[in-house]
Protein backbone atom coordinates (compact mmCIF):
# COMPACT_ATOMS: atom_id res chain seq x y z
CA UNK A 1 0.00 0.00 0.00
CA UNK A 2 1.26 3.41 -0.91
CA UNK A 3 2.18 5.38 2.16
CA UNK A 4 3.14 8.56 0.46
CA UNK A 5 -0.20 10.22 -0.24
CA UNK A 6 -2.74 11.79 2.07
CA UNK A 7 -5.03 8.84 1.47
CA UNK A 8 -2.27 6.29 1.96
CA UNK A 9 -0.86 8.09 4.98
CA UNK A 10 -4.03 8.65 6.96
CA UNK A 11 -6.51 5.96 5.92
CA UNK A 12 -7.20 3.10 8.28
CA UNK A 13 -6.52 -0.37 6.88
CA UNK A 14 -8.73 -1.38 3.98
CA UNK A 15 -10.04 -4.38 5.97
CA UNK A 16 -11.68 -2.25 8.71
CA UNK A 17 -13.70 -0.11 6.32
CA UNK A 18 -14.57 -3.18 4.26
CA UNK A 19 -16.05 -5.03 7.22
CA UNK A 20 -18.55 -2.25 7.72
CA UNK A 21 -19.35 -1.85 4.02
CA UNK A 22 -19.81 -5.57 3.43
CA UNK A 23 -22.00 -6.04 6.53
CA UNK A 24 -24.07 -3.05 5.48
CA UNK A 25 -24.61 -4.46 2.00
CA UNK A 26 -25.73 -7.80 3.46
CA UNK A 27 -28.06 -5.93 5.83
CA UNK A 28 -29.59 -4.06 2.91
CA UNK A 29 -30.52 -7.33 1.20
CA UNK A 30 -31.87 -8.73 4.49
CA UNK A 31 -33.82 -5.50 5.03
CA UNK A 32 -35.68 -5.71 1.74
CA UNK A 33 -36.17 -9.47 2.21
CA UNK A 34 -37.62 -8.86 5.70
CA UNK A 35 -40.04 -6.38 4.13
CA UNK A 36 -41.15 -8.90 1.51
CA UNK A 37 -41.97 -11.51 4.17
CA UNK A 38 -43.59 -8.94 6.48
CA UNK A 39 -45.54 -6.83 4.00
CA UNK A 40 -48.83 -7.50 5.77
CA UNK A 41 -47.54 -5.67 8.87
CA UNK A 42 -47.17 -2.42 6.97
CA UNK A 43 -50.46 -0.93 8.05
CA UNK A 44 -51.56 1.38 10.82
CA UNK A 45 -49.33 2.47 13.65
CA UNK A 46 -45.55 2.28 13.36
CA UNK A 47 -45.10 1.07 16.95
CA UNK A 48 -45.32 -2.67 16.33
CA UNK A 49 -42.66 -5.38 16.65
CA UNK A 50 -42.07 -6.21 12.98
CA UNK A 51 -41.89 -2.56 11.95
CA UNK A 52 -39.51 -1.82 14.83
CA UNK A 53 -37.33 -4.80 13.85
CA UNK A 54 -37.29 -3.77 10.18
CA UNK A 55 -36.57 -0.13 11.05
CA UNK A 56 -33.54 -1.22 13.06
CA UNK A 57 -32.25 -3.49 10.29
CA UNK A 58 -32.35 -0.32 8.19
CA UNK A 59 -30.91 2.12 10.72
CA UNK A 60 -28.34 -0.05 12.51
CA UNK A 61 -27.55 -2.75 9.96
CA UNK A 62 -27.61 -0.71 6.79
CA UNK A 63 -27.39 3.05 7.32
CA UNK A 64 -25.27 3.44 10.47
CA UNK A 65 -23.01 0.57 9.43
CA UNK A 66 -22.22 2.45 6.21
CA UNK A 67 -21.77 5.77 8.00
CA UNK A 68 -19.32 4.33 10.54
CA UNK A 69 -17.26 2.68 7.78
CA UNK A 70 -17.35 5.85 5.69
CA UNK A 71 -16.26 7.99 8.64
CA UNK A 72 -13.32 5.71 9.40
CA UNK A 73 -12.25 6.26 5.81
CA UNK A 74 -13.14 9.91 5.36
CA UNK A 75 -12.36 11.62 8.67
CA UNK A 76 -8.62 10.96 8.29
CA UNK A 77 -8.57 11.93 4.62
CA UNK A 78 -10.78 15.02 4.81
CA UNK A 79 -9.30 16.41 8.03
CA UNK A 80 -5.74 15.10 7.49
CA UNK A 81 -5.32 13.20 10.75
CA UNK A 82 -4.61 9.56 11.53
CA UNK A 83 -7.33 7.52 13.19
CA UNK A 84 -6.54 7.33 16.91
CA UNK A 85 -7.01 3.59 17.33
CA UNK A 86 -7.39 0.95 14.66
CA UNK A 87 -7.73 -1.74 17.33
CA UNK A 88 -10.76 0.00 18.82
CA UNK A 89 -12.29 0.30 15.35
CA UNK A 90 -11.86 -3.45 14.98
CA UNK A 91 -13.24 -4.30 18.45
CA UNK A 92 -16.13 -1.89 17.99
CA UNK A 93 -17.23 -3.70 14.87
CA UNK A 94 -17.83 -7.01 16.66
CA UNK A 95 -19.58 -5.45 19.66
CA UNK A 96 -21.75 -3.41 17.32
CA UNK A 97 -22.58 -6.42 15.14
CA UNK A 98 -23.61 -8.60 18.10
CA UNK A 99 -25.65 -5.76 19.63
CA UNK A 100 -27.41 -5.11 16.32
CA UNK A 101 -28.31 -8.76 15.74
CA UNK A 102 -29.53 -9.13 19.34
CA UNK A 103 -31.66 -6.01 19.27
CA UNK A 104 -33.26 -6.83 15.92
CA UNK A 105 -33.97 -10.39 17.03
CA UNK A 106 -35.53 -9.05 20.25
CA UNK A 107 -37.84 -6.75 18.29
CA UNK A 108 -38.65 -9.39 15.66
CA UNK A 109 -39.91 -12.00 18.15
CA UNK A 110 -40.82 -9.24 20.61
CA UNK A 111 -38.99 -10.79 23.48
CA UNK A 112 -38.09 -7.91 25.77
CA UNK A 113 -35.85 -9.52 28.35
CA UNK A 114 -32.35 -9.23 29.84
CA UNK A 115 -30.94 -10.37 26.51
CA UNK A 116 -32.63 -7.49 24.72
CA UNK A 117 -31.30 -4.97 27.26
CA UNK A 118 -27.83 -6.50 26.94
CA UNK A 119 -27.98 -5.98 23.17
CA UNK A 120 -28.98 -2.35 23.62
CA UNK A 121 -26.15 -1.96 26.14
CA UNK A 122 -23.65 -3.50 23.69
CA UNK A 123 -24.82 -1.05 21.04
CA UNK A 124 -24.31 1.81 23.47
CA UNK A 125 -20.85 0.50 24.26
CA UNK A 126 -19.98 0.27 20.55
CA UNK A 127 -21.23 3.82 19.97
CA UNK A 128 -19.24 5.03 22.97
CA UNK A 129 -16.06 3.41 21.66
CA UNK A 130 -16.73 4.96 18.26
CA UNK A 131 -17.39 8.42 19.66
CA UNK A 132 -14.24 8.30 21.81
CA UNK A 133 -12.13 7.01 18.92
CA UNK A 134 -13.27 9.72 16.51
CA UNK A 135 -13.24 12.48 19.16
CA UNK A 136 -9.63 11.76 20.16
CA UNK A 137 -8.79 11.68 16.45
CA UNK A 138 -10.41 15.09 16.01
CA UNK A 139 -8.20 16.60 18.72
CA UNK A 140 -5.25 16.54 16.35
CA UNK A 141 -7.08 18.30 13.50
CA UNK A 142 -5.21 21.47 12.60
CA UNK A 143 -7.49 22.88 9.95
CA UNK A 144 -11.18 22.79 10.70
CA UNK A 145 -13.78 23.06 7.97
CA UNK A 146 -17.54 22.87 7.61
CA UNK A 147 -17.38 19.08 7.23
CA UNK A 148 -15.55 18.84 10.56
CA UNK A 149 -18.28 20.81 12.36
CA UNK A 150 -20.92 18.50 10.93
CA UNK A 151 -19.03 15.45 12.18
CA UNK A 152 -18.75 16.85 15.72
CA UNK A 153 -22.47 17.65 15.80
CA UNK A 154 -23.31 14.20 14.44
CA UNK A 155 -21.24 12.44 17.12
CA UNK A 156 -23.06 14.36 19.81
CA UNK A 157 -26.44 13.44 18.33
CA UNK A 158 -25.38 9.81 17.98
CA UNK A 159 -24.76 9.71 21.72
CA UNK A 160 -28.19 11.28 22.38
CA UNK A 161 -29.78 8.68 20.07
CA UNK A 162 -28.04 5.81 21.83
CA UNK A 163 -28.93 7.03 25.32
CA UNK A 164 -32.56 7.67 24.38
CA UNK A 165 -32.56 4.22 22.77
CA UNK A 166 -31.40 2.36 25.84
CA UNK A 167 -33.77 4.35 28.08
CA UNK A 168 -36.64 3.15 25.91
CA UNK A 169 -35.33 -0.41 25.86
CA UNK A 170 -35.27 -0.48 29.66
CA UNK A 171 -38.68 1.15 29.74
CA UNK A 172 -40.10 -1.57 27.48
CA UNK A 173 -38.59 -4.22 29.73
CA UNK A 174 -39.51 -2.77 33.13
CA UNK A 175 -41.44 0.46 32.81
CA UNK A 176 -40.04 2.13 35.89
CA UNK A 177 -38.53 5.11 34.14
CA UNK A 178 -41.19 7.78 33.91
CA UNK A 179 -40.91 8.66 30.27
CA UNK A 180 -43.58 9.06 27.65
CA UNK A 181 -42.53 6.23 25.39
CA UNK A 182 -43.94 7.49 22.10
CA UNK A 183 -42.60 10.96 22.70
CA UNK A 184 -39.15 9.54 23.35
CA UNK A 185 -39.52 7.39 20.27
CA UNK A 186 -40.22 10.52 18.25
CA UNK A 187 -37.14 12.20 19.75
CA UNK A 188 -34.95 9.11 19.27
CA UNK A 189 -36.01 8.83 15.63
CA UNK A 190 -35.62 12.49 14.71
CA UNK A 191 -32.32 12.94 16.51
CA UNK A 192 -31.09 9.75 14.83
CA UNK A 193 -32.22 10.68 11.33
CA UNK A 194 -31.55 14.41 11.36
CA UNK A 195 -28.87 14.87 14.01
CA UNK A 196 -26.78 11.80 13.27
CA UNK A 197 -27.47 10.39 9.79
CA UNK A 198 -28.34 13.53 7.85
CA UNK A 199 -25.70 15.59 9.66
CA UNK A 200 -22.99 13.14 8.53
CA UNK A 201 -24.41 13.01 5.02
CA UNK A 202 -24.47 16.80 4.81
CA UNK A 203 -20.91 17.25 6.06
CA UNK A 204 -19.48 14.52 3.90
CA UNK A 205 -21.38 15.59 0.79
CA UNK A 206 -19.76 19.03 0.88
CA UNK A 207 -16.49 17.19 0.18
CA UNK A 208 -17.64 14.31 -1.99
CA UNK A 209 -20.13 15.95 -4.35
CA UNK A 210 -17.66 18.63 -5.57
CA UNK A 211 -15.01 15.94 -5.96
CA UNK A 212 -17.24 13.62 -7.96
CA UNK A 213 -18.70 16.34 -10.16
CA UNK A 214 -15.59 18.54 -10.43
CA UNK A 215 -17.34 21.58 -9.01
CA UNK A 216 -15.33 24.73 -8.40
CA UNK A 217 -15.79 28.22 -7.05
CA UNK A 218 -19.05 27.74 -5.14
CA UNK A 219 -19.89 29.33 -1.81
CA UNK A 220 -20.87 27.23 1.20
CA UNK A 221 -22.77 30.08 2.86
CA UNK A 222 -26.10 28.27 2.69
CA UNK A 223 -24.48 25.18 4.17
CA UNK A 224 -23.42 27.19 7.22
CA UNK A 225 -26.93 28.57 7.69
CA UNK A 226 -28.37 25.12 7.29
CA UNK A 227 -25.96 23.72 9.90
CA UNK A 228 -26.92 26.24 12.57
CA UNK A 229 -30.66 26.19 11.87
CA UNK A 230 -30.80 22.40 12.16
CA UNK A 231 -28.63 22.25 15.26
CA UNK A 232 -30.47 25.00 17.12
CA UNK A 233 -33.81 23.48 16.07
CA UNK A 234 -32.83 20.04 17.34
CA UNK A 235 -31.57 21.28 20.72
CA UNK A 236 -34.76 23.34 21.03
CA UNK A 237 -36.95 20.31 20.43
CA UNK A 238 -34.97 18.16 22.86
CA UNK A 239 -35.54 20.75 25.57
CA UNK A 240 -39.17 21.72 24.96
CA UNK A 241 -40.44 18.16 24.65
CA UNK A 242 -39.88 17.78 28.39
CA UNK A 243 -42.40 20.54 29.15
CA UNK A 244 -46.15 20.91 28.73
CA UNK A 245 -47.96 23.37 26.47
CA UNK A 246 -45.05 24.12 24.20
CA UNK A 247 -46.76 23.59 20.87
CA UNK A 248 -45.79 27.02 19.56
CA UNK A 249 -42.10 26.56 20.38
CA UNK A 250 -42.26 23.06 18.92
CA UNK A 251 -43.55 24.52 15.63
CA UNK A 252 -40.78 27.13 15.57
CA UNK A 253 -37.99 24.63 16.18
CA UNK A 254 -39.45 22.11 13.73
CA UNK A 255 -39.64 24.80 11.06
CA UNK A 256 -36.01 25.75 11.72
CA UNK A 257 -34.99 22.16 11.05
CA UNK A 258 -37.15 21.97 7.93
CA UNK A 259 -35.75 25.24 6.56
CA UNK A 260 -32.23 24.05 7.38
CA UNK A 261 -32.79 20.85 5.40
CA UNK A 262 -34.24 22.77 2.47
CA UNK A 263 -31.25 25.13 2.49
CA UNK A 264 -29.03 22.06 2.39
CA UNK A 265 -30.77 20.76 -0.73
CA UNK A 266 -30.42 24.23 -2.24
CA UNK A 267 -26.73 24.29 -1.32
CA UNK A 268 -26.25 20.98 -3.14
CA UNK A 269 -28.00 22.59 -6.12
CA UNK A 270 -25.51 25.49 -5.98
CA UNK A 271 -22.61 22.99 -6.04
CA UNK A 272 -24.17 21.09 -8.95
CA UNK A 273 -24.62 24.33 -10.81
CA UNK A 274 -20.85 24.89 -10.71
CA UNK A 275 -19.92 21.40 -11.81
CA UNK A 276 -17.65 20.89 -14.78
CA UNK A 277 -18.68 17.33 -15.25
CA UNK A 278 -22.17 17.63 -16.61
CA UNK A 279 -22.40 14.01 -17.71
CA UNK A 280 -24.08 12.27 -14.77
CA UNK A 281 -22.89 8.75 -14.12
CA UNK A 282 -25.08 6.23 -12.38
CA UNK A 283 -23.82 7.09 -8.88
CA UNK A 284 -24.63 10.76 -9.35
CA UNK A 285 -28.05 9.97 -10.86
CA UNK A 286 -28.94 7.94 -7.75
CA UNK A 287 -27.81 10.89 -5.62
CA UNK A 288 -29.80 13.52 -7.54
CA UNK A 289 -33.03 11.53 -7.13
CA UNK A 290 -32.21 11.13 -3.42
CA UNK A 291 -31.82 14.88 -2.92
CA UNK A 292 -35.14 15.46 -4.66
CA UNK A 293 -36.73 12.88 -2.36
CA UNK A 294 -35.28 14.65 0.67
CA UNK A 295 -37.14 17.86 -0.25
CA UNK A 296 -40.36 15.92 -0.68
CA UNK A 297 -39.82 14.18 2.67
CA UNK A 298 -39.25 17.51 4.41
CA UNK A 299 -42.57 18.77 2.99
CA UNK A 300 -44.33 15.71 4.43
CA UNK A 301 -42.51 16.28 7.71
CA UNK A 302 -43.79 19.87 7.85
CA UNK A 303 -47.35 18.72 7.12
CA UNK A 304 -47.05 16.12 9.90
CA UNK A 305 -45.94 18.79 12.36
CA UNK A 306 -49.14 20.75 11.84
CA UNK A 307 -51.74 18.02 11.44
CA UNK A 308 -52.57 14.91 13.41
CA UNK A 309 -50.57 12.25 11.51
CA UNK A 310 -53.19 9.61 12.29
CA UNK A 311 -55.75 11.57 10.24
CA UNK A 312 -54.12 10.36 7.01
CA UNK A 313 -53.92 6.59 6.59
CA UNK A 314 -50.37 5.24 7.03
CA UNK A 315 -48.85 8.74 6.93
CA UNK A 316 -46.21 8.07 9.57
CA UNK A 317 -45.27 4.78 7.84
CA UNK A 318 -44.89 6.60 4.52
CA UNK A 319 -42.83 9.31 6.21
CA UNK A 320 -40.41 6.77 7.73
CA UNK A 321 -40.29 4.82 4.46
CA UNK A 322 -39.43 7.99 2.54
CA UNK A 323 -36.57 8.84 4.88
CA UNK A 324 -35.11 5.33 4.76
CA UNK A 325 -35.57 4.49 1.08
CA UNK A 326 -35.95 7.31 -1.46
CA UNK A 327 -33.69 9.64 0.51
CA UNK A 328 -31.11 7.60 2.45
CA UNK A 329 -30.93 4.30 0.58
CA UNK A 330 -30.75 5.89 -2.87
CA UNK A 331 -28.12 8.33 -1.67
CA UNK A 332 -26.05 5.64 0.03
CA UNK A 333 -26.29 3.33 -2.99
CA UNK A 334 -25.27 6.19 -5.29
CA UNK A 335 -22.30 7.16 -3.15
CA UNK A 336 -21.26 3.52 -2.74
CA UNK A 337 -21.09 3.19 -6.53
CA UNK A 338 -18.51 6.00 -6.34
CA UNK A 339 -16.63 5.28 -3.11
CA UNK A 340 -16.17 1.50 -3.22
CA UNK A 341 -14.64 1.41 -6.73
CA UNK A 342 -12.29 4.17 -5.66
CA UNK A 343 -11.18 2.37 -2.48
CA UNK A 344 -10.67 -0.92 -4.29
CA UNK A 345 -8.89 0.79 -7.16
CA UNK A 346 -6.67 2.71 -4.75
CA UNK A 347 -5.83 -0.41 -2.78
CA UNK A 348 -5.03 -2.56 -5.79
CA UNK A 349 -3.75 -0.28 -8.50
CA UNK A 350 -2.48 2.96 -7.00
CA UNK A 351 1.11 1.76 -6.76
CA UNK A 352 1.04 0.56 -10.35
CA UNK A 353 0.08 3.88 -11.97
CA UNK A 354 2.84 4.99 -14.28
CA UNK A 355 4.41 1.54 -14.22
CA UNK A 356 1.80 -0.48 -16.08
CA UNK A 357 -1.68 0.10 -17.53
CA UNK A 358 -4.34 0.22 -14.82
CA UNK A 359 -8.14 0.14 -15.20
CA UNK A 360 -10.29 3.23 -14.78
CA UNK A 361 -12.81 3.40 -11.95
CA UNK A 362 -15.75 2.92 -14.24
CA UNK A 363 -14.20 -0.29 -15.59
CA UNK A 364 -14.49 -1.90 -12.16
CA UNK A 365 -18.20 -2.67 -12.46
CA UNK A 366 -20.86 -2.99 -15.09
CA UNK A 367 -22.99 0.17 -15.04
CA UNK A 368 -25.81 -1.72 -16.72
CA UNK A 369 -26.70 -3.61 -13.53
CA UNK A 370 -26.47 -0.43 -11.48
CA UNK A 371 -28.92 1.25 -13.87
CA UNK A 372 -31.37 -1.66 -13.69
CA UNK A 373 -31.04 -1.53 -9.91
CA UNK A 374 -31.96 2.15 -10.05
CA UNK A 375 -35.04 1.51 -12.18
CA UNK A 376 -36.22 -1.31 -9.90
CA UNK A 377 -35.42 0.74 -6.81
CA UNK A 378 -37.24 3.89 -7.88
CA UNK A 379 -40.26 1.97 -9.25
CA UNK A 380 -40.39 -0.13 -6.07
CA UNK A 381 -40.23 2.92 -3.83
CA UNK A 382 -42.79 4.98 -5.73
CA UNK A 383 -45.14 2.01 -5.92
CA UNK A 384 -44.70 1.20 -2.24
CA UNK A 385 -45.58 4.75 -1.21
CA UNK A 386 -48.72 4.73 -3.38
CA UNK A 387 -49.71 1.27 -2.07
CA UNK A 388 -49.20 2.39 1.54
CA UNK A 389 -51.32 5.51 1.03
CA UNK A 390 -54.09 3.53 -0.62
CA UNK A 391 -53.57 0.64 1.83
CA UNK A 392 -53.38 -2.01 -0.90
CA UNK A 393 -51.55 -5.14 0.26
CA UNK A 394 -50.94 -7.12 -2.94
CA UNK A 395 -49.38 -4.23 -4.87
CA UNK A 396 -47.29 -3.48 -1.77
CA UNK A 397 -45.89 -7.01 -1.86
CA UNK A 398 -45.10 -6.63 -5.56
CA UNK A 399 -43.25 -3.34 -5.03
CA UNK A 400 -41.35 -4.70 -2.04
CA UNK A 401 -40.17 -7.55 -4.28
CA UNK A 402 -38.89 -4.95 -6.76
CA UNK A 403 -36.94 -3.34 -3.91
CA UNK A 404 -35.52 -6.72 -2.99
CA UNK A 405 -34.36 -7.27 -6.59
CA UNK A 406 -32.84 -3.79 -6.58
CA UNK A 407 -30.86 -4.60 -3.41
CA UNK A 408 -29.66 -7.87 -4.98
CA UNK A 409 -28.44 -6.05 -8.09
CA UNK A 410 -26.71 -3.49 -5.89
CA UNK A 411 -24.89 -6.16 -3.93
CA UNK A 412 -24.01 -7.92 -7.16
CA UNK A 413 -22.22 -4.74 -8.30
CA UNK A 414 -20.44 -4.49 -4.95
CA UNK A 415 -19.27 -8.12 -5.24
CA UNK A 416 -18.07 -7.38 -8.78
CA UNK A 417 -16.02 -4.43 -7.53
CA UNK A 418 -14.54 -6.26 -4.55
CA UNK A 419 -13.61 -9.25 -6.69
CA UNK A 420 -11.48 -7.10 -9.00
Amino acid at each position, binding site marked *: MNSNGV*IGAYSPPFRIVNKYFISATISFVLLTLAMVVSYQYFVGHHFQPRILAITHIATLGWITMILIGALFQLVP*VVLEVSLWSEDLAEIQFWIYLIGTIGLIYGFWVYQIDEFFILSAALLNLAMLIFIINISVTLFSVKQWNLTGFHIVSALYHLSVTAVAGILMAINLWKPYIKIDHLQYLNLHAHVAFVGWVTMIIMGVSYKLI*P*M*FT*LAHGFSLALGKWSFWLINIGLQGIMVVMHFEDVTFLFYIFSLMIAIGLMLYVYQIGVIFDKRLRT*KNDVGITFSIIAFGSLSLTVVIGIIMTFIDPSSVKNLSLVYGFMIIFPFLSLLIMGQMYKIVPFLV*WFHKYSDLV*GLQPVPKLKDLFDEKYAKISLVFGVTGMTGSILSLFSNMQSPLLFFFILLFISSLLFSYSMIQIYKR
Partner: protein
Amino acid sequence: MATKDELFEVLKGVIDPEVGINIVDLGLVYEAYLDEATDKNKIIMTLTTPGCPMHNNITLWVENIVKQFEPEKEVAVSLVWEPKWNPSMMSAEARRELNG
Protein backbone atom coordinates in the same frame (compact mmCIF):
# COMPACT_ATOMS: atom_id res chain seq x y z
CA MET B 1 17.57 13.31 -23.22
CA ALA B 2 13.77 13.58 -23.29
CA THR B 3 12.22 16.51 -25.09
CA LYS B 4 9.31 18.52 -23.77
CA ASP B 5 6.96 16.88 -26.25
CA GLU B 6 8.13 13.43 -25.23
CA LEU B 7 7.65 14.19 -21.55
CA PHE B 8 4.13 15.50 -22.16
CA GLU B 9 3.34 12.39 -24.16
CA VAL B 10 4.64 10.17 -21.35
CA LEU B 11 2.63 12.09 -18.76
CA LYS B 12 -0.56 11.24 -20.66
CA GLY B 13 -0.13 7.85 -19.03
CA VAL B 14 -1.17 9.32 -15.68
CA ILE B 15 -4.94 9.24 -15.56
CA ASP B 16 -7.06 10.84 -12.88
CA PRO B 17 -8.88 7.69 -11.76
CA GLU B 18 -12.11 9.44 -10.83
CA VAL B 19 -12.49 11.55 -13.96
CA GLY B 20 -10.90 9.02 -16.30
CA ILE B 21 -8.93 11.70 -18.15
CA ASN B 22 -5.14 12.00 -18.27
CA ILE B 23 -3.45 14.89 -16.49
CA VAL B 24 -2.13 16.45 -19.70
CA ASP B 25 -5.57 16.73 -21.30
CA LEU B 26 -6.94 18.02 -17.99
CA GLY B 27 -4.42 20.86 -18.34
CA LEU B 28 -2.70 20.08 -15.06
CA VAL B 29 0.83 19.91 -16.49
CA TYR B 30 2.28 23.40 -16.96
CA GLU B 31 5.90 22.61 -17.83
CA ALA B 32 8.08 19.56 -18.43
CA TYR B 33 11.77 19.86 -19.24
CA LEU B 34 15.26 18.71 -18.37
CA ASP B 35 16.58 21.11 -15.74
CA GLU B 36 20.22 21.37 -16.73
CA ALA B 37 21.32 22.86 -13.43
CA THR B 38 20.25 19.77 -11.49
CA ASP B 39 20.22 17.29 -14.38
CA LYS B 40 16.72 16.23 -13.34
CA ASN B 41 13.56 15.97 -15.38
CA LYS B 42 11.47 18.76 -13.96
CA ILE B 43 7.68 18.69 -14.05
CA ILE B 44 5.71 21.76 -13.01
CA MET B 45 2.07 20.98 -12.49
CA THR B 46 -1.03 21.82 -10.52
CA LEU B 47 -4.16 20.02 -9.32
CA THR B 48 -7.74 20.99 -9.93
CA THR B 49 -8.15 21.99 -6.32
CA PRO B 50 -5.74 22.65 -3.44
CA GLY B 51 -6.18 20.10 -0.68
CA CYS B 52 -7.15 17.38 -3.13
CA PRO B 53 -6.85 14.14 -1.15
CA MET B 54 -5.01 12.54 -4.07
CA HIS B 55 -2.37 15.25 -3.88
CA ASN B 56 0.78 13.27 -3.08
CA ASN B 57 -0.37 10.19 -4.93
CA ILE B 58 -0.63 12.01 -8.22
CA THR B 59 2.85 13.53 -7.89
CA LEU B 60 4.19 10.08 -7.04
CA TRP B 61 2.57 8.63 -10.16
CA VAL B 62 4.16 11.40 -12.23
CA GLU B 63 7.57 10.59 -10.76
CA ASN B 64 7.10 6.88 -11.44
CA ILE B 65 6.10 7.26 -15.05
CA VAL B 66 8.82 9.75 -15.96
CA LYS B 67 11.42 7.70 -14.14
CA GLN B 68 10.36 4.63 -16.03
CA PHE B 69 10.65 6.48 -19.34
CA GLU B 70 14.13 7.77 -18.59
CA PRO B 71 15.55 5.75 -15.70
CA GLU B 72 18.96 7.39 -15.70
CA LYS B 73 17.54 10.80 -14.71
CA GLU B 74 16.03 11.80 -11.38
CA VAL B 75 12.60 13.43 -11.44
CA ALA B 76 11.56 16.60 -9.62
CA VAL B 77 7.86 17.39 -9.45
CA SER B 78 6.77 20.81 -8.23
CA LEU B 79 3.15 21.47 -7.46
CA VAL B 80 2.21 25.08 -8.06
CA TRP B 81 -1.05 26.96 -7.44
CA GLU B 82 -0.26 29.92 -9.69
CA PRO B 83 -1.61 30.24 -12.28
CA LYS B 84 -4.69 28.70 -10.77
CA TRP B 85 -6.13 25.85 -12.79
CA ASN B 86 -9.39 26.60 -14.57
CA PRO B 87 -11.60 24.61 -16.91
CA SER B 88 -10.42 26.50 -20.00
CA MET B 89 -7.06 24.75 -19.59
CA MET B 90 -8.62 21.41 -20.53
CA SER B 91 -8.25 20.07 -24.04
CA ALA B 92 -11.29 19.82 -26.28
CA GLU B 93 -11.19 16.05 -25.87
CA ALA B 94 -11.26 16.31 -22.09
CA ARG B 95 -14.24 18.62 -22.24
CA ARG B 96 -16.09 16.25 -24.53
CA GLU B 97 -15.39 13.39 -22.15
CA LEU B 98 -16.78 15.33 -19.18
CA ASN B 99 -19.89 16.58 -20.86
CA GLY B 100 -20.60 14.04 -23.56
